């Protein structure tokens, strides 16, 4: 993750958090009472990214001076955002390979509810990205002052990962939700 994506570090942390956070089925299917807590995982590739990102960031947080101080701030924000992603943003992405095969089944309804939540909370999610960007900007500045190339590369890669979320992953989740809803309504 290091040179390639700081956000991945974040994602790694997020992934770890994702494993822990239970997802309520009741949220996915409000009309149908379900087991109290059902976990929907996130794609393994994103899980690995999250874990790597968080690991990298935690290493940076042990460095002395401003870089370490700002990295510690970043860890908090990364974990929070990772938890959000793990809770309801990224799980629907696990359905993509099956959807790509043209298969839609009623037990996918949970993904519609998550997608709806992403749409409803899009601005709050964006605000989290903005806060992460802000701390990464601070990390870049501190890294340049400290001539810490690793920290700078991490921050720039993490910013790229955040853009990946905004440009691709979150819109994909919305499309997944709309697609499943449409197909289920059509009786698939």
């Amino acid at each position: 993750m290091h040179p390639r994506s700081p956000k991945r570090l974040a994602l790694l942390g997020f992934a770890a958090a994702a494993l822990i956070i239970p997802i309520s089925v009741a949220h996915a299917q409000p009309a149908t009472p379900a087991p109290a807590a059902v976990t929907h995982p996130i794609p393994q590739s994103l899980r690995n990214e999250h874990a790597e990102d968080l690991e990298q960031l935690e290493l940076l947080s042990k460095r002395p001076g401003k870089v370490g101080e700002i990295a510690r701030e970043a860890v908090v924000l990364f974990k929070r955002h990772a938890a959000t992603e793990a809770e309801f943003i990224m799980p629907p992405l696990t359905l993509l390979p099956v959807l790509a095969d043209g298969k839609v089944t009623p037990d996918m309804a949970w993904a519609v509810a998550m997608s709806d939540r992403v749409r409803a909370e899009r601005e709050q999610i964006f605000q989290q990205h903005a806060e992460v960007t802000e701390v990464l900007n601070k990390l870049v500045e501190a890294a340049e002052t400290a001539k810490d190339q690793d920290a700078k590369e991490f921050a720039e890669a993490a910013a790229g990962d955040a853009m990946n979320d905004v440009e691709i992953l979150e819109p994909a989740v919305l499309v997944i939700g709309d697609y499943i809803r449409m197909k289920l309504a059509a009786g698939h």
Partner: protein
Amino acid sequence: MSERILRTAITVLLLTSAVPTLAFAAGDAAAGQSVFKSTCTMCHSNQAGQNKIGPSLFGVVGRKTGSEPDYTYSPANKAANLTWDEATLDKYLESPRTVVPGTKMTYGGQKDAEKRANLIAYLATLK
């Protein structure tokens, strides 16, 4: 005569109300370069044609939204149909999603008007 006085008063009022706009020109480009470095360079280059996560900001002042070659803009930015003059940049930099709802720039905005003015003064030198 009274009409002349009235016109003068109106002129003074108009000039006074224009002061905030004129403040852009009073920005300190050197200080703005520092703002650019601390808040923009992670995603934006100041070099012509060097697009990073965000588009190059070389020549941004006076440019139309969504017009930097070889950069993939958000649909919102492409459709905004704005010109990045000082006044528009000032509003955008204060709150990007207010001016261009749906922009993908994950920047919360610079709330300090002086820093914005300085940054805009620096951006104006990039040409």
